[in-house]
């Protein structure tokens, strides 16, 4: 109460106006709807928004999704079935797709080629015959050799994204190899193995890394020390020689599928230390946080604390490092298959295809056989760009 009021007015209300209307205490700090979305958004939402602004990463992500779709639907995307070969089509160079024939637009087509064997040079010579036009069909089913497939080995089909025209037409986008197999189709089929190895390897690596790193970070002390030493030891191994050694140890008796898993295990074997180290250092920091202590005090089990509270806090970092580790694995599988230590025919992967292309004759005479290099490069690039974007976005609060 102010002092310059008269005494007879002491029990009268003060001369200021107080509205009786209901009011919002936070009025002056009211949030606009956008701001509200922002502050109330979950961690994942924020990450997504930040990622979205990094356009290259988004493009890479879309590319990868497309790639994995192709891998899943490989039989449909590839015009020819995996084992199909054409005895008359050995070492055919990539067929050009034309749109105009004699000045008229008739849609995408290839010229049929004439083949003869040059005895002098012991080489096949294929020349396009500009009179025979083979129109490429889209969303077609069957009608030529090599159209039939078993989708994932489960049921038969012959629907394709695009097919050659009729019986004698061919569409060898990237040429053929020494047995007359379409390189493009083999690359598409091979994507299934190559792309999945990275994923499965990452899963294995994650499991190992989080488990071991988590234990180290959470318990600390001598457990931590030992694990740290182990990590250091594994990190000082030069990767490829160790992979070579482990691959040489794989029993040949194993069926191809077991070898496949063996290879992913080997690749993961040298990858988890990095992950474990990151997990460990994060955990060491985070376990001192209030929420962790609170959970502990409330009686949560160790597993629950690690799994439910701590790990999600840095899951974003894990995702980022995963996306950078996957290309390592893809390259690793490629390198091992190249050395003849990884997958071998009849399994088809990009590494196996490159192994077949790895000699001077190919470089000099049949360079299109090196085409599998392109998807490898593109995939690795895409993963790296995506990983960069994810890493930038992983700390949405900074």
């Amino acid at each position, binding site marked *: 109460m102010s002092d310059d009021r008269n005494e007879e007015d002491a029990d009268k209300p003060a001369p200021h106006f107080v509205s009786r209307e209901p009011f919002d205490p936070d009025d002056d700090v009211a949030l606009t709807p956008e701001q509200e979305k922002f502050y109330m958004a979950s961690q994942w939402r924020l990450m997504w928004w930040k990622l979205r602004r990094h356009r290259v990463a988004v493009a890479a992500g879309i590319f990868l999704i497309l790639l994995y779709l192709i891998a899943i639907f490989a039989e449909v995307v590839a015009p020819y079935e995996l*084992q199909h*070969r054409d*005895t008359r089509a*050995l070492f055919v160079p990539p067929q050009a797709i034309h749109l105009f024939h004699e000045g008229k637009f008739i849609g995408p087509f290839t010229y049929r080629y004439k083949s003869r*064997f040059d005895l*002098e*040079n*012991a*080489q096949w010579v294929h020349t396009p015959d500009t009179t025979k036009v083979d129109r490429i069909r889209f969303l077609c089913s069957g009608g030529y050799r090599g159209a039939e497939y078993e989708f994932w080995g489960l049921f038969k089909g012959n629907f394709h994204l695009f097919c050659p025209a009729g019986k004698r037409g061919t569409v060898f986008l990237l040429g053929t190899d*020494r*047995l*007359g197999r379409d390189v493009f189709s083999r690359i598409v089929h091979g994507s299934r193995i190559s792309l999945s190895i990275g994923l499965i390897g990452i899963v294995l690596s994650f499991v190992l890394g989080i488990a071991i790193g988590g234990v180290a970070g959470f318990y600390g002390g001598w457990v931590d020390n030992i694990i740290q030493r182990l990590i250091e030891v594994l990190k000082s191994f030069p990767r490829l020689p160790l992979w070579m050694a482990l691959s040489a140890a794989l*029993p*040949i*008796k194993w*069926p191809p599928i077991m070898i496949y898993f063996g290879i992913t295990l080997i690749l993961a074997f040298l990858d988890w230390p990095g992950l474990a180290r990151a997990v460990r250092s994060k955990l060491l920091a985070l376990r001192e946080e209030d929420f962790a202590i609170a959970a502990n005090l409330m009686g949560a089990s160790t597993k629950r604390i690690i799994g439910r509270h701590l790990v999600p806090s840095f899951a974003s970092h894990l995702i980022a490092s995963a996306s950078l580790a996957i290309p390592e694995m893809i390259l690793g599988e490629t390198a091992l298959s190249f050395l*003849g230590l990884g997958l*071998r*025919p*009849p399994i088809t992967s990009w590494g196996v295809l490159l192994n*077949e292309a*790895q*000699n*001077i*004759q190919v470089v*000099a*005479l049949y360079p299109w056989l090196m085409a599998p290099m392109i998807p490898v490069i593109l995939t690795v690039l895409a993963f790296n760009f995506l990983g960069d974007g994810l890493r930038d976005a992983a700390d949405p609060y900074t």
Partner: protein
Amino acid sequence: MSIRQKLIDSCLATALILALAATGSVAAQSGEPPLLAALVKSGGLPPMMQRLPEQPRVVEVDSIGRHGGDLRISMARSKDTRMMTVYGYARLVGYDRSYNLVSDILQSFDIEDARIFTLYLRKGHKWSDGRPFTTEDFRYWWEDVANNPELAPLGPPAFMRAGGQLPTVEIIDEYTVRYTWQQPNPFFLPQLAAARPPFIYRPAHYLKQFHAAYADKAALERAVKERRMRSWAALHNASDNMYNFDNPDLPTLQPWFNTIRPPQQQFVFVRNPYFHRVDPQGQQLPYIDRVLMNIADTKLIPAKAAAGETDLQARYIFMSHYPFLKRAEVKKNFKILLWNTARGSKVALYPNLHHKDPVWRKLFRDVRFRRALSLATDRDEINQVIFFGLAQPSNNTVLPQSPLFREELQTAWAEFDPDQAEELLDELGLDKRDKDGVRLLPDGRRVEIVIETSGEDTEQVDVLELLRDTWLDVGIKIFTRPSQRQVFRNRIFSGETMMAVWFGVDNGIVSADMSPAEFAPTRQVQYQWPKWGQYFETGGKAGQDIDMPAPRELFELYGRWQTARSTEERTKIWRRILDIHADQVFTIGIVCCTKQPIVVTNRLKNVPREGVYAWNPGAYFGVYLPDTFYFTDAGN
């Protein structure tokens, strides 16, 4: 300074020496290689007439050559130094180009009753270090090596036995030695002429320092310790490998000897100044001074050849490299020769007659099944796709160049006749098929054959790819399983493999006097019947005895061949053996008569335009005597 070191130094001095025309022409007149001329002049080496044996072997050559030059070849591993023993082809007796046996290191030999062999050495023949080559070297091997319990715990090697008996070895004099067996030994001379010969002689003067019976005890112990061997026997065995060329100190009789201790990336073989052959003009062979062997990865060797970095290259070059090499032919001044090969079949399938599954074993042992598989094979297509159409579809049998060849042998059951194949399969009771068209066994399982490969040869894998379709058409599904050499073989030996793919018989250019061992169950490495072969090899201690009539007959024929006394008799036996094989289709051959590309620089002469590139007999280049090859620009 050892002779070898002097030689190496003289290589460098040669450039100066050869610039002096006088020395060059003098050397040419006397037949003395210019490389050695300086050494001879300075007294470091005796003159040529004293280095050669009293009666050197005079070799006929297509054209008289000149001394000089370095021959560059490429190999893939340090171990390939042994190839120089193969190419050098200095043998006690060797094959000539028509595969007749002629004496080479030996002056001559006598055979009595097919079981008594008298060998006459050349008087004055010396080792590469100048020490005399005499029957002492034979005696040393027989008494102190082959029959020494520490050096050879199992006794002398198997090839020294005929009818299970060892020979009596008599040293008649310094240059005559006689081997007497109780039974005929038709293998003895062919063995001596083999690509990888048994060395029944050793440089005694050199090896005695490693032998406990001759060497100074203390010195020997020191040497053993130094080389970290466990015993003197190990040291001796490590030092006396006449084949490998891995010990530069070991004296040899070959035309060139190794001067670099393995492993290295390059080996330098220098001429042997005491080599026993001369050309018709009296020039001492070899013409070429040095052979430089570069070690490179197998995949790079075709590239090196195409880049002109080799002078004579056949090993590790295949027909698939032909187009690539052809492009560089003119620019890099070399020619690609196409020699014939000797394999019965370049690729062959071996159904395992010991497969552990009884149903499959019965099937493989049924000749109709094997015939059906052979009929279902489109050899023409395989020939076209993989071998450029340059090979011949064929069974795994003898080749057209062999005197024992008949066309029926090559074509029996080898035509592509899927209908007949289906008939046979139906006859066998495999007439039911499932929804995919794959036939079913009587017990309901699919007729699926797993074919294993050693994983080394893409041609074999490609052949299987092509087989897949035609066999599927007659209802048989194939799975390929790539493996690794050791595991591959072990699985075959134990009967776990169903069918293996490998090369065909090594030697298809046989005459009646050559051993039919490859066609009878005699060795474990015969992938269709490893256990019977093992039984024979181990003298009955391991493996199984033959329990099928046709292989049993083959084995008996083999025994009769060994004791046959005349070529007619042997020819009759051979014919029967080959007929049985053609009829029974124990192995499924694909194509024969593939070509071997040989990259030869245009500067190298006396390399035959056409020849047979075979391991045994033939020693690859051996029978064509590389010591008679020479460079047109030698001595410049």
